[in-house]
């Protein structure tokens, strides 16, 4: 099988989805003394074409699915699906990362488990940790959180549904900074 070049893969996606590809980037990394290289592709696509994009990806080769990364940016939730293509030959594998944005008021995602069954664990993780509803994903119990865990708290969220403590002015501040002095005072 003739492998597509990273540039050709990006072109293929752009041809099919035109302006729906918000961002695309190819990175070339080198390693070792001989400075051999491998490539990574980063794509950002509009939510409505996301499933189509995964379908298109499956026509190139059945991809290996790694995991979904989540990012709560405040207004929306960014999900990045990490795939890789062309295993089995030296230096041929291409990592492909497809990002899509979900508006906070409608956290719905099409499931890709009908195309790639191995994605189930990760989708269930996103469901319980991020509060994302996956359409057509069977309603299975929690994978990582206790079964009786609150259905209104999502640990990876950085808004009022997350589990971050409040700051001095009563607002969540990016979720990353915890006011240690305040915490100490509480203990005292």
């Amino acid at each position, binding site marked *: 099988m003739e492998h597509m070049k990273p540039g050709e893969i990006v072109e293929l996606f752009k041809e099919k989805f035109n302006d729906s590809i918000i961002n695309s980037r190819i*990175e070339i*990394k*080198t*390693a*070792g*003394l*001989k*400075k*051999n290289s*491998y490539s*990574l592709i*980063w794509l950002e696509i509009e939510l409505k074409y996301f499933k189509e994009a995964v379908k298109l990806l499956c026509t190139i080769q*059945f991809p*290996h*699915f*790694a*995991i979904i*990364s*989540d*990012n709560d940016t405040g207004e929306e939730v960014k999900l*990045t699906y*990490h795939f*890789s293509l*062309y*295993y*089995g*030959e*030296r*230096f*041929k*594998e291409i*990592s492909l*990362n497809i990002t899509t944005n979900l508006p906070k008021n409608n956290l719905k995602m099409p499931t890709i488990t009908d195309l*790639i*069954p*191995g*994605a*189930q*664990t*990760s989708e269930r993780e996103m469901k319980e940790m991020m509060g994302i509803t996956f359409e057509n994903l069977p309603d299975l*119990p*929690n*994978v*990582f*959180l*206790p079964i009786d865990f609150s259905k209104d708290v999502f*640990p*990876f969220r950085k808004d009022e549904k997350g589990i971050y403590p409040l700051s001095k002015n009563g607002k969540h501040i*990016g*979720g*990353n900074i*915890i006011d240690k002095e305040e915490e100490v005072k509480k203990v005292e």
Partner: protein
Amino acid sequence: MNKKTYSIPIGPVHPSLEEPMTFNFEIYGERIEKVYLAPGDNHRGIEFMGRQRNPIQIIYLAERICGICSASHPFAFCQAVENAAGIEVPERGQYIRVIIAELERIHSHILWAGIAGHELGFDSVLYISWRAREEVLDLLEYLTGNRINYGVFMIGGVRRDITEEQIPRIRKTLEYYKDIYGKIEDIFLKDPTIALRTKNVGVLTKEDALRLCAVGPTTRASGIKKDVRQDQPYSAYADLNVKAITPDVLTGEVNGDVYDRIVVRLLELVQSLEIIEQCLENMPSGEILAEKKLVKLLNQLKKTKGEGIGRHEAPRGEVFHYVKLAEAEVPEIWKARAPTYNNLMPWAPMLLGEQIADIPIVIASTDPCIACMDRVTILNKANGQKSILTNKDLHELSVQKTRRITP
């Protein structure tokens, strides 16, 4: 005939493996009809903790995700940060990283071989293989100061050099394993009882391995030539000719059973010895760390905006880390994925149709980093009678089966 099934929950804690996990089985007679997996008993929220720490602090947190893969997680994490920040690791640092990672593979695979022996009822194999494992642990202690949690990895390279004086000691260990490899192969691949207990047991077909995105020796034993060290060579692996090992190299056929998983791991042991030898021969001189002043490094990372992924072929399969830096003290996102995460779903097709006595070896055959069982409750649905099978009983069942079929 009334086809009544019984449910057996196995888990959540088992002393022979590292982490707890629950398996719920539907059993008809001795045969497994359905499998429900329920992990999460050991979810410590490490990613959440990491999102409140700076990248250098996360290295040590990543190291403690797993005691056995304590080089693999920092390896992948450091790569992810380096990719995000555009830091180049000096070549010598890359070679030392590979040497430590391969030593870890040797100790992990021997540890697994011992557990496999134990699950089958060959406890002498457990003692002998774990005795053999001590040699590489001693070497790791000699090189890094610790048997596990080596503390060698740093963003931009490694913290400790391998000096000229240390190389003879490394070679001594390599010779030791070359000497005893014949014996290990003899025990696992030529013993008729082990073959009886492991051949055609816990089969994972090539299609299932692909569909369910299995990784590591589990997927390679099913005939998929997938190995990050080969497919996307990173670090010093780019200079070394690493080939994904499938069982047909030795046996000429691929069955995807427990036996094939043993074959793959044993062959990878030899491969690791060869990789370390190549590294020692070709290791360039020079710096081992891109930026020695850690305060400066932290400042640089604090001003960085970008995202990166790090992949490493750990003993159990691909470890995947994703980091997003957003000009802040702490990373915006840190996502870590261990190989067992992907090897979770393939357990179902492996276990279906097998017997209760095969549960321990089939579960152990993917080398899970999640533990399975402490005790088993068999609930008789018909009369509500409850009997508890302890880990000892379950182990005894497995031992009895081995004795029964021994020729």
